[in-house]
């Protein structure tokens, strides 16, 4: 255990992240930044899914549905009303939360596999609606020509500008997730994951807290979608297929269910890996990357079943932090 406090570690990482665009990489800088931006986008998504799958212990296979809802909310609002990105972001989050509640309220009474099936159905439903409701979404033609966000009167264009934007979003999401984790709400989620009956007998209303988890997770996913729409400038129903859900779930399982650092590390490793594989694998074999992901997961299950940064470890460091804080505050009194 190092003696550096987590606050300093975080600041160091942030400085490192801010310096990243200025590394002397020559002409490949913007490509490199695009890959990292994708990785950070998936970090945001994985942090959102982690609230349901990792903290609350519910298997949610329909997460990409909220991502799609967020992306289409942002895309349509941009095209039809030309709203600012900073207005659209909370609107997308609210829309995601709304659908999270509408889906969660009736289905969260189901448990285990049944719940997973329902969420799977939801993600398929979202794709079907996006594909077929032509009057709203233009269906398989997609939504082209979404304008980029405008910051201080300057429309974002360059790779590093988007990179900074996504880092900002990540900081916001990270703030939300860490604050929730160390609160009454986070502890209620952990309790539900560990033992539902005991949680109930501790005064936790299961349905209520599951719905809150679902809504917050959905709104984070929708925020990721809103960024994606304004960044990529084109969205299509096929981008929000079921496989994306599985990929995000893979990131969490790989990194460590329930641990924030693990989730982020998982995204930072597996998403660029896909680009590396694109270079390594022969032409036309690119879809085989899922095979390699599968292989990695199998090996992980054999050698490190709790993920790269297991949840236990996170709990221990949290307890250590509390101990330090109590020691210092006790000294003052």
């Amino acid at each position, binding site marked *: 255990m190092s003696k550096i406090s987590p606050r300093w570690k975080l600041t160091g990482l942030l400085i490192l992240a801010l310096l990243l665009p200025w590394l002397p990489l020559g002409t490949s800088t913007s490509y490199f930044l695009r890959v990292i931006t994708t990785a950070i986008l998936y970090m945001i998504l994985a942090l959102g899914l982690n609230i349901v799958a990792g903290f609350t212990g519910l298997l949610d296979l329909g997460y990409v549905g909220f991502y799609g809802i967020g992306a289409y909310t942002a895309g349509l609002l941009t095209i039809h009303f030309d709203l600012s990105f900073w207005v659209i972001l909370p609107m997308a989050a609210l829309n995601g939360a709304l659908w999270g509640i509408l889906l969660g309220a009736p289905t969260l009474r189901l448990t285990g596999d049944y719940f997973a099936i329902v969420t799977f159905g939801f993600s398929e439903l979202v794709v079907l609606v996006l594909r077929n409701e032509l009057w709203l979404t233009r269906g398989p033609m997609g939504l082209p020509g979404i304008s980029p966000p405008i910051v201080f009167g300057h429309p974002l264009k360059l790779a590093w500008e988007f990179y900074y934007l996504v880092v900002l979003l990540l900081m916001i999401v990270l703030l939300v997730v860490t604050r929730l984790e160390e609160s*009454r709400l986070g*502890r209620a989620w952990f*309790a539900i994951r*560990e033992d539902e009956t005991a949680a109930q007998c501790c*005064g*936790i209303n299961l349905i209520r807290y599951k719905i809150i988890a679902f809504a917050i997770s959905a709104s984070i996913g929708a925020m990721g979608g809103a960024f994606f729409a304004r960044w990529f400038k084109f969205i299509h129903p096929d981008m929000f297929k079921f496989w994306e859900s599985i990929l995000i779930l893979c990131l969490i399982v790989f990194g460590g269910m329930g641990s924030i650092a693990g989730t982020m590390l998982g995204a930072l490793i597996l998403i660029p890996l896909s680009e590396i594989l694109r270079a390594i694998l022969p032409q036309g074999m690119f879809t085989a990357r899922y095979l390699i992901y599968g292989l990695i997961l199998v090996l992980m299950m054999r050698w490190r079943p709790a993920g790269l940064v297991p949840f236990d470890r996170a709990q*221990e460091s949290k*307890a250590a932090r509390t101990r330090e804080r109590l020691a210092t505050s006790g000294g003052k009194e």
Partner: protein
Amino acid sequence: MDTILKVSSLSKVFGGLSALSDISLEVVTGKIVGIIGPNGAGKTTLFNCLTGLYYPTDGQVFFQGNPVVPELSSRKAGLVQRWSLIFIILSLAWLPLFWSFFLSRTFFKVELTLLAIFILSIRLLVVRGLKEFQLWAWSVMFVFILGDLYLAIWWLTHPTTLGSLPGTEVRLAYFAFPWVSFAVPFSIYLSWQLLLRDVRQLYGFRLGPDQINRLGMARTFQNIRLFLGLSVLDNVRIGAHGRMHQQVGSILLRTRSQRNEENEIEQETLEILRFVGLEHRTFDLSGALAYGEQRRLELARALASHPRLLLLDEPAAGMNPQESSQLMQLIRRIRDQGVTVLIIEHDMKVMMNLADNIYALDHGELIAYGTPDEIRANPRVIEAYLGRGSADAKA
């Protein structure tokens, strides 16, 4: 004397098996009351009924005078019937509107499916009756809200384009305005009820385990049920969940009141852990604790909710004599702080020293009640524990 818990003629039937039959008991405030009985006598089932994990087949439970499992009153039953009648009438008014609205559209396949689900759920609601109300209330609501919002928005944006009912001269506008003005507030009201208050509380007739806990009844479990992946500190803080007030907003903004509450709960947690003698393990994983320590941690978690009544399910099971005598002292100290204790115990020795009064159960029936000495001498209790014949021998 004050009774904190009153159970009157409680029964629980699993399938054809009667686990509890006609149990009536009263627990006096500030006492330690024991429940004994051989294996399978229904002691834990009784606890589960009291804490809301099981729904008793019959009977009532009052906690501090408040009904936890109240009687099925005719007033409430009437209320539910009236509610569902409104539901059905409203749905009948809804159908022709829905139908005529979507017949003129080209993309009505999805909506026809919705309609089918809607009719199905109404039918199921009627057929299955009120017992299954929860689930179907939800599904009906879901379709209701979707349809409401869709139609309401469409009507508000296209007030002049409404046609007439198919095959008639009746203008749809005559329906639309009263319908929107009635159905939308109704759906909003109902969804608010369904979201904020548990359906069970509104239409059913009892409190859930979480609500019972917040009233001031905490319990431990026979097979220890800790949150093993969390630290000892977190376990106890979760126990205090029902007393805390922070919500999503205050957590995200980290308001002053939220931080104060967290600090208070932390200090209090440390005090409780000191009280049960676990302060040296505060920051350890609860899964790493020894068996006896886990038992005490579960007790600490229950105490954290500031209960008025503590239900202990075999707290001394699996402990050596020294540990169990420590535990008995602990329970006495809890009692001295003004907490009433209801305790299930297998070990007669523990019970004789600890309890002020004892209820004896056998085969789901109450067979004896009295002070420990009376229970010890009661032939029916001896018979239940040792079998017929030995009662005479021991006497």
